[in-house]
């Protein structure tokens, strides 16, 4: 099997250039590629377009890349919980394309799956539909949406093997599998890297074909946004 192991995040993101389009997995701070984000901060790469469901919080996740002004455009569905983001958006410093979450997920899925366009009911009659083709199927209106692809996809998994097979945990799966398939180069960081043959093929969530580079991540903070308990 093909070995895709690289040493660390810095090496993995080494060829990400200014003005690249990136996809970053995660929902809120759950399942985000923490190591790759840190490496992007260190690299100082600028002018990034980031496709990610959320934009992190002020001082964690993609929020850190907003603080350093490395991001010029965000494509997201929900950007609450981030004051700096809202400020840059309202001031016009940051270009933002907001999409329905399901449309975002499906456009990314379409990018990986070679479907250049599809119809969805989400957003008909709203700002989201402006300029998009509306088409009626079986008496209901739908919008034509196009695929999304990225120069680099940065995904985070629980376990991964050297051939790039990935298994996610809990709700940290979210956008990661579709993004893994939609990146020209997909970089996976994992909590536990295992040799090929250690993962049950029947339990693999992302087949290795989608992953070009994989590394063992370190120092995961896994910050919780809404720590909520019964106690």
């Amino acid at each position: 099997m093909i070995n895709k192991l690289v040493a660390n995040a810095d090496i993995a993101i080494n060829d990400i250039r200014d003005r690249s389009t990136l996809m970053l997995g995660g929902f809120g701070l759950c399942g985000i590629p923490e190591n790759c984000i840190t490496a992007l901060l260190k690299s100082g790469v600028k002018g990034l377009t980031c496709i990610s469901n959320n934009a992190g919080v002020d001082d964690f996740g993609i929020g850190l890349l907003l603080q350093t002004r490395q991001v010029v455009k965000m494509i997201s569905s929900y950007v609450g919980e981030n004051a700096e983001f809202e400020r840059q958006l309202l001031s016009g410093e940051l270009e933002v394309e907001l999409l329905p979450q399901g449309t975002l997920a499906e456009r990314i899925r379409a990018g990986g799956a070679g479907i250049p366009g599809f119809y969805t009911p989400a957003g008909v009659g709203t700002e989201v539909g402006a300029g998009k083709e509306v088409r009626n199927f079986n008496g209901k209106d739908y919008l034509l949406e196009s695929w999304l692809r990225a120069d680099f996809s940065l995904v985070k998994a629980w376990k991964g093997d050297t051939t790039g097979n990935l298994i996610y945990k809990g709700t940290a799966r979210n956008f990661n599998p579709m993004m893994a398939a939609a990146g020209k180069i997909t970089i996976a960081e994992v909590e536990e890297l295992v040799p090929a043959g250690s993962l049950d093929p029947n339990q693999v969530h992302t087949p290795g074909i989608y992953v070009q580079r994989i590394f063992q991540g370190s120092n995961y903070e896994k910050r919780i946004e809404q720590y909520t308990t019964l106690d």
Partner: protein
Amino acid sequence: MALDKIGIAKRIAREIQTGWYINLGIGIPTLVANYIPEGIEVVLQSENGLLGIGPFPSKNQVDPDLINAGKQTVTMLNGSSLFNSAESFGMIRGGHVDLTILGAMEVSEHGDIANWKIPGKMVKGMGGAMDLVASADNIIVAMQHVSRSGVSKLLKKCTLPITGLRCVKKVVTDLAVLEVDPEIGFRLLERAPGVTVDEIVQATEGRLTVEGEVPEMTF
């Protein structure tokens, strides 16, 4: 007397039927889960990729990799399942979710809903709301009947950017339970305890039909 948030949540909980898969929005809708009657078996869907949301965890159960759509830490139940975001919204768009409960800033007499943006002031994004309202057959909105400044939120026409058209089936407010028919507008079904029909009429800008004796809510 007008209901508090818990009262709204309790009243909505009575709409729920056994066997349903339900998506609860952030805010009052999330509270509904606490008041589902005994013996009613439902499954709660979280659009970030979980079917079968359990109670909040005890401190030693907290798992940062297990959150709901409001980013709160949760648990799973026997029979829960996990999946990715494309699958999750496939479920929603495909009509597999039986009931969607969500909050709103405004609802129009045609069933239009606005709940994602206040131009120039607040832009949090629509999250999954546009997908939910465009897809679900059964949408109940939980909201205050009038704004803090006393303006009706049940309107002829939404003034804020729309989330979805002609989709809301029922509205439960602090004052009333109302049905929405895109052709005839709001229809008053129930009054909050002690609230008069006249108070509800005053608080409703959109077209409102009142027929016969309007019963008080029961819980």
